[in-house]
């Protein structure tokens, strides 16, 4: 069903470089007709996929506290500046941060756990649960075990 107004939404679509980003790219048809800003962690990657407009944000993982702060500062600034209606991420930790900050400002949030996590939800996915309005696994059995939703997979 279309929204009552049918207005284009402002979407922030964010993923770390590598497999997370590639999965986000395969889901791009879902964003058609909306105003999308892409964000990733690797310089030159978004341009290589012709994903415009885009911003590059610092990468981080849970073992590097300073990198987490740096990444969080950039993502927070980006979200306060762009005020997205929707925040979508396929991973990893910078995406979790984006969902958390997005939710704080009233955005609706989607987590799509990477298809690489065929046996259990990723660490980032587990963290993202409390910030995601729609919390998806790409594996039916993982969704069933964790209480996530399953809607399909990129492969």
């Amino acid at each position, binding site marked *: *069903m*279309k*929204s009552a107004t*049918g207005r284009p*939404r402002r*979407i922030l679509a964010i993923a770390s*470089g*590598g*497999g*997370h*980003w*590639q*999965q986000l790219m*395969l*889901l791009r*048809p*879902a*964003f*058609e007709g*909306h105003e999308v800003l892409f964000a990733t962690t*690797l*310089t*030159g*990657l978004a*341009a*290589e996929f012709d994903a415009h407009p885009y911003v590059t944000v610092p990468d981080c993982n849970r073992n590097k506290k300073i990198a987490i702060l740096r990444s969080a500062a950039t993502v927070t600034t980006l979200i306060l500046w762009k005020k997205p209606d*929707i925040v*979508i991420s396929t991973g990893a930790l910078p995406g979790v941060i984006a969902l958390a900050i997005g939710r704080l400002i009233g955005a*609706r949030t*989607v987590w*799509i756990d*990477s*298809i*690489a*996590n*065929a*046996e259990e939800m990723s660490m980032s996915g587990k963290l993202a649960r409390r910030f995601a*309005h*729609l919390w*998806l696994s*790409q594996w039916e059995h993982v969704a069933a075990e964790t209480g996530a939703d399953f*809607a*399909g*997979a*990129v*492969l």
Partner: protein
Amino acid sequence: MIFATVGTQLPFPRLMNALATLVIDLDEPVIAQTGPDPTRYLALDQRETLAPAEFSTLFQEARIIVAHAGMGTILSARRWHKPLVILPRRHDLGEHRNDHQLATARHVADLPGIHVAWEDAELAPLLRRQDLPSADETPGPGRAALIGRLRDFIAN
């Protein structure tokens, strides 16, 4: 040319040592993106990291890609229609924080053009084949369903 890639996060010396041994009788150059690996593999044309554009170029020019079982590499092989040989990283050998690459390999082993080497010894016969089938981008039925669900969520 064979292009080897192991991602940017962790080294994968088991794969690199196997390739360094093999390259002598393969009679074909191997360009290897080795990640943060202090070892110099003299038989390989070694790069620690590659910019996205360089990565794409080497990926497209290679005859075969050989890699860890990373989803990024698998999706790249499908994007560029390349034959891909994967050697999954193993937790018991200290190659990753868990065994998710073995699970990934089991789940992608039946996809066209994705060839799993479960053991090091399976690499050589796969890499010697001149007719190794290529991966392709044909999506399963689940992708349209996932996109549909996201589209509905965005609009409502």
